[in-house]
């Protein structure tokens, strides 16, 4: 998993992206993958498998929960949504990331 190594830094980022995606409402794994790639314009080159692992890890930690349901084309699919804990996590991570990114950006600007 060479890509995953590059993305060590972004492991937390992946969680953040997923939590952010789910603010639009419950979605299944495929929709989530699409949303991430569309929103990032494929800039991040994320392996989809890593996305699923991240998703299940979040579920395991209680940030999201899943339920089986029917997809738009009437197929059985697993839908994910936030838990209250997940929403809190999203807010705090968002704030942290924004601060962090701003700081890094500031440093890069000065050079």
């Amino acid at each position, binding site marked *: *998993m060479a*890509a*995953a190594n590059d993305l060590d830094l972004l492991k937390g980022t992946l969680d953040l992206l997923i939590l952010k995606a789910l603010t639009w*409402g*419950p979605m*299944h*794994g*495929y929709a989530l*993958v*699409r949303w991430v790639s569309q929103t990032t314009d494929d800039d991040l080159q994320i*392996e*989809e*498998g*890593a996305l*699923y*692992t991240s998703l*299940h*890890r979040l*579920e*395991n930690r209680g940030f999201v929960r*899943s*339920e*089986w*349901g*029917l*997809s*738009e084309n009437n*197929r*059985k*699919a*697993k*839908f994910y*949504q936030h838990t209250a804990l997940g929403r809190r996590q999203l807010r705090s991570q968002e704030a942290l990331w924004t601060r962090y990114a701003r700081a890094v950006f500031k440093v890069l600007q000065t050079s």
Partner: protein
Amino acid sequence: MTANPRYRRFFRIDRGDADVEVGVDEELRFHFDMTVRDLMAKGMSPDDARREAERRFGDVQHTRESLTSLDRERAGRERRTEWFGNAAQDIRYAARGLRKKPGFTLAVVLTLGLGIGANATMFGIVDQLLFRPPAQLPDPGAVNRIYLSRRDDGKDFTGSSMQYRRYEDLTNWTTSFSETAAFWNTKFAVGSGDASREMVVEAASASLWRLFGAKPVIGRFFANDEDRAPEGAPVAVLGYGFWQSKYGGRQDVLGAQLHLGRSELTIIGVAPKGFLGTSATPPAVFVPITRIAAEIDAGNRPGKRYFESYNMSWLEMIARRKPGVSVKAASADLTNAYLRSYAAHRAMSPSLTPAEIANPRGIAASVVKERGPRPGQDTKVATWLVGVAAIVLIIACANVGNLLLARALRRRREIAVRLALGISRGRLLAQLLTESVLLAMLGGVAGMMIAQWGGGILRASLLPKIEQTNSFGDPRILAFTAVATLVAGLLTGIAPALQAGRSDLAATLKAGAREGTYSRSPLRTGLLVMQGALSVVLLVGAGLFVRSLHNVKSVRLGYDVGKVLYVNPEMRGAKLAKPEKAQLRNRLLDAARGLREVAQASRTITVPFYMTMEDDIFVTGIDSVNKLGDFTEQVGSPEYFETMGTRIIRGRPFAAADRDGAPRVMVVSQSMAKVIWKGRDAIGQCVRIGADTMPCTTVIGISEDIKHGSLGADDQGLNYYLPIDQTGQDQGGLFVRTRGSAVAQTEIVRRSLQKLMPGDSYVNVTPLDEIVNPEMRPWQLGATMFAVFGGLALLVAAVGLYSVIAYNVAQRMHEMGVRVALGAQTRDVVRIVVVEGVRVAVVAVVIGVGVSLLAGRWVAPLLFETSARDPLVYAGVGSLLIIIALAASLVPGIRAARVDPSVALRAD
């Protein structure tokens, strides 16, 4: 959570591990299918699309595994959370239900508490009697208590008491044991002057310390060379408790002097805390057994010393087997040694039964006395009472089960609704069982309190020899109670759970509260019959024991118990010559007679059930009189018969003229006269006592028989009486007949007589009651316990019967209303209800009587001159139960008859 229009929920969350894998695969498949579909929509070929999808995804296998393991972890956690959540919910639900019905809860908790409490108490007692080896004894399985058995006059005697010489023989002539020890647990006056008290003293061989592997707290224990015949060293080891209470645990107690009996002992050490040796109660002092033996010996008639002869059986023996030696081999080894010792014994006393007939055997038995060949009567009764307590618990469970069942029936609609709403039957069952286990736990707590309090009374009043324990502090009793509680909870929960599991949903829901609900519940009736039958069994037991007790109490002892005191002078160190001893006793006699409270007094040597004397007697023309039975010898003053209340049937009692030097005279009991002279007049006959060369002792009177060794028919009442002036003037004590109850005068008599005692000597005054009553205790115990438990069982069964009948009547109000409307009389309605109750009782009586008759075979040996099939008891118990059933169903019957038809028919 916001409702999502794009999907609807219809699958349950993943549960099992298999579900998890299927779920992961399904999710991934969906992902690939969608990806491929979208890529193909963009114009890719199916193969390209699949390859592209896999590329984008990365390592499928690895991802699949990590997803599965993540999900599995979560599913497990969720299952556990759900289980705990359910359990907590069930407990809350059950607790709320119980709080809402405090009366019901109290009744159930008390019923179960009594059942569990009775069992905890009996378990505590039996555990202590049968399953506790002596404290601090390492590897008790390898230690045996030694019993000797032999055959005499066609009867087998097995006993643990033996002579010092025998103990030495068995020690020297066996090879099976690594250590043997002799001991004698007794009471001695310890201390001097007013501070002296009778205390538990363990006389033990020096080997006892090694056998127990004990280490002294301070000082040392006595060693072999301090425990040697003829006379052990005057040393003492203090018990820990006595050291603390008397000496405040001081270290300088070593070397101090201690007054014990006639001896001055030097304290050389202190035994470890909690060390009891072989005693049931903590000994105050441990003394070398040869020291005590020498002390007793000094008081005896001159002759062979205790270590030379086989005259006096008094000590007991325990032994530790060498590793690898079986109990059987040890017993065989003992038998061989005993045979050799018996031969030595017979060489000294040629009158001893030859070994071929006596068949002497040694037995290595359990170190726990009550498990050996000679358990006490108390133990037998206590073991029985365990069964009785178990029956009480079963009855309590049946009753509580019945009450819960009635509740379940009332809640039938509620349960049906909940089933219809999708609760699983498993969850429902768990809920019902939670309720009954919760009740049982409350009952268990109540039971522990009952065991602590009621058990204390029981032990104190009926089993005084058993030491008090704290039920709450005893892990074995706690564990037992916990198990009993759990079993009770499950037992009581089964019936209602079965009922709930069986109910037909649709029918119950369709029916109104009235319609279709009346059907006799066979389960409830069955439980009721069982309760009734078990109550009958217990009550029959109670009846049999009460009859036994009555028979024991009405046994004509041949003397009055309630009005007689036994006065026993203890000489302790005061060294008097024989004439002085005789004078002292006669002074005591005169002083006693001078008291206002005393009606009469007499000298005595023997005391019934306490001290017996026998001598060889010879009658011309009869070959070996001693083969005819055991003749007991009593010795007294002329007033002996008046004092004891023993009637003279013919002839005369002793007179003052029958003194030393006058012609020798005796009084014999009726049975003795009959056995020896068979129809001829006994008065005027000549008996030679001690040897056939002795001068004639002439029979001058015939008295009634007395019970001297046993209350039963095995005491044949072969007694004879000699005037004390013609026998042992200097021995024995007094019997004092008081005007009022003897117990009340004990202290007055003791104080008055004590004034005459020289030096350190003192008098013991004991009501004869206290000596004779313990003989009746097994029946007292049996009668009380069976009566208490039987009464409880009856009460519980009566309440159960009432509640079932009342419930049935309530269910049939509609029907009763119809009957009344159609012109039924009060009498008819009452009859319908009462007949139902009585029918249950009759069935219960029939079953109970059958079971009792079967069980009677085992209880018969415990009864006293009472048949285990005593018709009076059976008839009494049977009618009692039926009368109770009548009473219990009469109340609901009358209520049913008072039904206002218009109300009953309009209801619901």
